[in-house]
């Protein structure tokens, strides 16, 4: 075992020597290289573009999504469309003025790029028709009569046509005070192959529709996935302001902490360089910024600052011991190289574990974050000490460090109680109680989104108000789950298929949360009744294939594919809570298990709720996988660095407690485990472990020197403890501002990360020494001593 450690640690130690020599003997070259790279990557960073695609937000390797992607072309218009409700503020829609506006809006939408024009629907489009049974048979026509002229008579005609078109609750509100234009979108333009630009589309909807037509008499309400994404991108852009604020606050705090102008500006500058590099590299690798990875620069900045603080702090201490700026910087580099590298590696690996979740946005987030951490190694672990060796920490800071170290009595002394058996017991007991409470509360934690409407956005956001308007005034729900029924070619409308689908839909009425469903079978049933003078007794799938064929001479778009081998069953749900979705998927799976054959297969799933169901399933399993990975990897790294199981327990236990409490917090705040909150745990653990590593490595140094635990702990607190507390604060400041983001999930992430950063800090400062005391970690002194002696020899050599 020892050999293995040697094998792994030797190269790191060797690299330390090499890096140290290179950095501190070729300082100008180093600065020049870093400067050059910063300019190049900075230019790249300015080119980075917001990016959000529908497919990236769903788990593409989940069978549901695979099924959807396989049938994607046949399901056009189902997955992705925008609804524009045009509402009359006073009176109803049967006025010449309103109808003129609705017509203009319909025309305007028709010409927006990315719109599937043939499938665009409103009462003004010719594909929306009324039908009626008369003594002579079926009669019908467009809802807006050809001879429409805005007169009272023709408006009355429109009213009659709307009533008999069956569009009330679908394209016309139940209260007749608004009407909808249904705008299906191309994900990829069929002619140009161009990807739909959600942001541009969303802006066009705002400018060409909302700004232009919203007046004292007309209000506009827009919903749909494309609008959500558009709003997300523009909302996410607002976080740039938060970045500015975080930068300023950090600047002030850093100065208060270090009392050194260089000690403030250099770490800040290096951290900004890290962010620039990270963005530039992302762009170089072909990534864009989606609303999730948009938060990574904050994290990178905060982590960079916190590492910078450690280095500046150590430099100040070394200077206080009399070293000159070059030697102080070099010693700080040497002292922090291994713990810093370990900490950053565990951050990075913590982020990399997110890759196990097969959802592109999370994987992209993992890439962006690990890239950022890798960059910090260069900018803050390498560049920062080099710059500091040139500019120095300044006299005030050196003096302060000296005074602080020599001060016999300090407020930190109070905390040493936790390193004594009595205090340690209290601390561990309290932690155990908290753990128990956390575990109990965490039971209530739910998977998936819990809010209605678009849960990515705030409940009182424009979009969600629009969505509430539409769900309130129309019959169709915005939570849609699509089951794709596959048959042999040309068999989608056979009696056997349709009667099975009909049975399936009846079966669905039994499932909690299902409002209604619609399919080709409904069309056949309704038209068959229509062909029999509207007699309800004929509203059944007829066994005579000729009758079925006659009933399907006109099929609305999206209910079957061109080769008649696929018919979607569109299921409208009450909500998209995980429980509802689980009930639906389980019920559909049961039905499919009984009825699937060579002739017919009931395949899940498309529609926003279908994807959500898939996402939930992926997240539910990935949640534990990811925890196992992140703790496994972080634990292994700690074990490699400290070579002691007890140390591992000391460092990991506070983290685990925080993770558990975080879950309890989520449960109590009604935040579900979802795409946005899943990474938080990995980020929290990955970053939180830094504190433990810094604290423990410092503590260990003193222990090895033969100090009793309380003394070693006090010294640690006075030196590293201070910077760890400061780091926790910096990190928290970096993320706490997200709470004000217009995007709900960014706010959720902000709350949770702030909580984790602060609790992890407290855990490292209070619980870690308590555990160390109870586990008597000092017993491992002997072996550590040998290491320390080796290090000391090296020090002396310098």
């Amino acid at each position, binding site marked *: 075992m020892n050999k293995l450690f040697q094998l792994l640690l030797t190269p790191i130690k060797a690299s330390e020597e090499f890096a140290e020599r290179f950095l501190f003997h070729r300082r100008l070259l180093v600065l020049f290289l870093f400067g050059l790279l910063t300019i190049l990557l900075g230019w790249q960073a300015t080119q980075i573009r917001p990016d959000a695609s529908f497919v990236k937000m769903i788990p593409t390797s989940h069978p549901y999504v695979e099924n959807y992607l396989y049938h994607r072309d046949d399901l056009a218009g189902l997955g992705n469309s925008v609804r524009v409700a045009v509402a009359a503020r006073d009176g109803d829609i049967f006025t010449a003025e309103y109808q003129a506006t609705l017509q203009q809006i319909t025309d305007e939408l028709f010409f927006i790029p990315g719109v599937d024009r043939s499938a665009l629907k409103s009462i003004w489009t010719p594909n929306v028709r009324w039908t009626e*049974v*008369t*003594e002579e048979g079926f009669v019908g026509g467009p809802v807006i009569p050809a001879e429409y002229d805005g007169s009272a008579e023709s408006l009355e005609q429109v009213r009659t046509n709307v009533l008999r078109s069956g569009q009330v609750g679908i394209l016309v509100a139940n209260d007749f005070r608004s009407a909808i234009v249904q705008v299906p979108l191309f994900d990829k333009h069929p002619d140009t192959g161009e990807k739909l630009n959600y942001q541009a589309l969303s802006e066009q909807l705002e400018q060409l529709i909302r700004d232009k037509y919203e007046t004292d008499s007309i209000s506009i309400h827009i919903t749909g996935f494309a609008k959500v994404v558009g709003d997300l991108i523009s909302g996410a852009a607002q976080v740039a302001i938060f970045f500015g604020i975080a930068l300023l606050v950090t600047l002030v705090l850093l100065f208060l902490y270090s009392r050194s102008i260089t000690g403030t500006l250099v770490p800040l500058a290096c951290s900004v360089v890290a962010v620039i590099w990270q963005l530039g590299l992302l762009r170089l690798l072909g990534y864009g910024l989606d609303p999730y990875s948009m938060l990574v620069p904050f994290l990178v900045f905060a982590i960079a600052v916190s590492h910078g603080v450690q280095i500046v702090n150590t430099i100040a201490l070394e200077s206080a011991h009399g070293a000159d700026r070059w030697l102080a910087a070099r010693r700080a580099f040497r002292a922090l190289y291994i713990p810093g590298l370990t900490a950053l590696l565990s951050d990075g690996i913590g982020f990399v574990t997110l890759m196990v979740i097969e959802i592109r946005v999370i994987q992209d987030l993992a890439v962006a974050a690990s890239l950022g951490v890798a960059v910090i190694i260069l900018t803050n672990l390498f560049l920062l000490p080099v710059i500091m060796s040139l500019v120095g920490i300044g006299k005030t800071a050196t003096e302060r460090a000296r005074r602080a170290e020599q001060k016999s009595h300090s407020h930190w002394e109070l905390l040493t109680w936790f390193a004594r058996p009595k205090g340690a017991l209290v601390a561990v007991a309290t932690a155990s109680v908290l753990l128990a409470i956390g575990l109990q509360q965490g039971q209530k934690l739910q998977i998936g989104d819990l809010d209605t409407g678009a849960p990515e956005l705030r409940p009182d956001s424009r979009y969600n108000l629009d969505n509430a308007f539409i769900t309130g005034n129309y019959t169709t729900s915005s939570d849609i789950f699509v089951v794709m029924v596959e048959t042999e070619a040309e068999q989608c409308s056979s009696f*056997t298929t349709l*009667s*099975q689908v*009909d*049975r399936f839909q*009846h*079966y669905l*009425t*039994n499932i909690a949360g299902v409002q209604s469903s619609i399919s080709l079978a409904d069309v056949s049933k309704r038209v068959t009744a229509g062909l*029999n*003078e*509207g*007699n*309800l*007794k*004929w*509203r*059944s799938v*007829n*066994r*005579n294939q000729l*009758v079925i064929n006659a009933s399907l001479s006109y099929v609305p778009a999206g209910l079957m594919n061109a080769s008649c081998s696929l018919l979607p069953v569109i299921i409208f749900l009450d909500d998209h809570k995980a429980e509802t979705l689980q009930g639906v998927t389980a019920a559909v799976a049961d039905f499919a298990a*009984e*009825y699937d*054959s060579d002739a017919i297969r009931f395949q899940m799933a498309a529609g926003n709720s279908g994807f959500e169901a898939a996402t939930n399933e992926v997240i539910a399993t990935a949640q534990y996988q990811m925890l196992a990975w992140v703790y496994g990897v972080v634990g292994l790294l700690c074990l490699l660095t400290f070579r002691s199981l007890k140390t591992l327990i000391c460092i990991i236990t506070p983290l685990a407690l925080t993770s558990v409490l975080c879950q309890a917090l989520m449960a109590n705040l009604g935040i579900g485990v979802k795409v946005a909150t899943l990474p938080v745990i990995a980020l929290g653990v990955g970053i939180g472990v830094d504190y433990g590593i810094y604290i423990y490595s410092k503590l260990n140094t003193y222990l090895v020197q033969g100090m009793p635990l309380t003394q070693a702990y006090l010294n640690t607190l006075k030196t590293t403890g201070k910077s760890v507390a400061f780091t926790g604060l910096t990190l928290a400041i970096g993320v706490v501002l997200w709470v004000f983001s217009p995007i709900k999930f960014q706010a959720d992430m902000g709350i949770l990360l702030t909580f984790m950063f602060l609790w992890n800090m407290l855990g490292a400062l209070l619980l870690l020494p308590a555990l160390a005391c109870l586990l008597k970690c000092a017993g491992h002194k002997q072996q550590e001593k040998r290491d320390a002696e080796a290090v000391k020899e090296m020090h002396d050599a310098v």
Partner: protein
Amino acid sequence: MYQSSAPLRRFLLPLLTAAVAVLVSTSVFASDRLQAMSIPSTRATETLLLDITLAGDRVVTAGDHGVILYSDDQGRHWQQADVPFSVMLTALDFTSSQQGWAAGHDGLLARTDNGGESWLSVMNGDDINQLRLARLEQLYAQMEVQVDAQPDNDELLDQLDTLSFQLEDAQIAVEDGPAIPLLDIWFADAQTGYVLGGYGLLLRTVDGGQSWQYWGDRLPNPDSFHLNSMTRDHQGTLYIAGEAGQIFRSVDQGISWELLDSPYDGSFFAVVSQQDQLYLLGLRGHLFNSANGIDWQQVGIDTDKTLTAAVPLTREMLLLGQGGVLLTGSEDSFRVVDSGVRRSFSAGVAIGKQWLLVGERGITQLSAEQQEAGRE
């Protein structure tokens, strides 16, 4: 999964015991709706329901997907019956509080002996097609004998021609399978009953449903119009109303039928008798009444919605129809009642001051008093 196929059913099933037959042919997993169990549903009262009737004190209703519901407390609580098929059921009729019949799509006819709690399929469209074919073959054979006897009688030759066409249709129907829906059941008493259906289908029993005869050939219905509704007036004359203004009458207990002059070309969905009045309910607000079944007067009403059924009240009639339309009145005076419902009604019953109506939206309960009050 068991898939029934014709040869299997014809040759194998008789060899098996009745119990096994029921087990194999009636299953949740059966893929054909004639054999697949009706799925019990918590929302069965919201399914499309097409007929409702009284079985003693019990109310029974039936509709789409083989749903049959019964209530012993005037519609406050409903129980879903055990139904071994899931075709759409269009009509119910009870001859006593225990014995009842249900008819539906695919020519399904079923009976209950326990007040509607459980049901057994009696026959389906395949059986009906065979009955029809056998009847027409028999008629054809008889006619051939007559023609052989009088080879110069042109009238007989014409009739033979017509019969050969009908026979051909019947043979095609056999190939099409059980495709013709049944639309109404009407029992004169426990023994004598009729089943009406699409394309001129008519069945008759005189032994309480032990055996059924194909009766469609007794009606002068060469265009095979759908037969929608049947009734008997206070003098014992039978009437059948159907598609395209067809109205048939029998004065000899259903043995022979004549086509009456119709007051209207559009379809009739119900023919109803109350006291000494007859009513015809039809497409697009067409309502007619008559005292003798021969002379019909159109009743002016304030709706152009199709009327589908009538519920006899104490003195008046309640008419119901598409788009939730409701009318009350008698003879030549009916007024619209606002039910507050916009979905179509198919049938109804009145229990005291309460109306139980079924249709597109399942069961709707209305209080007659409220409706009266609302009108004033």
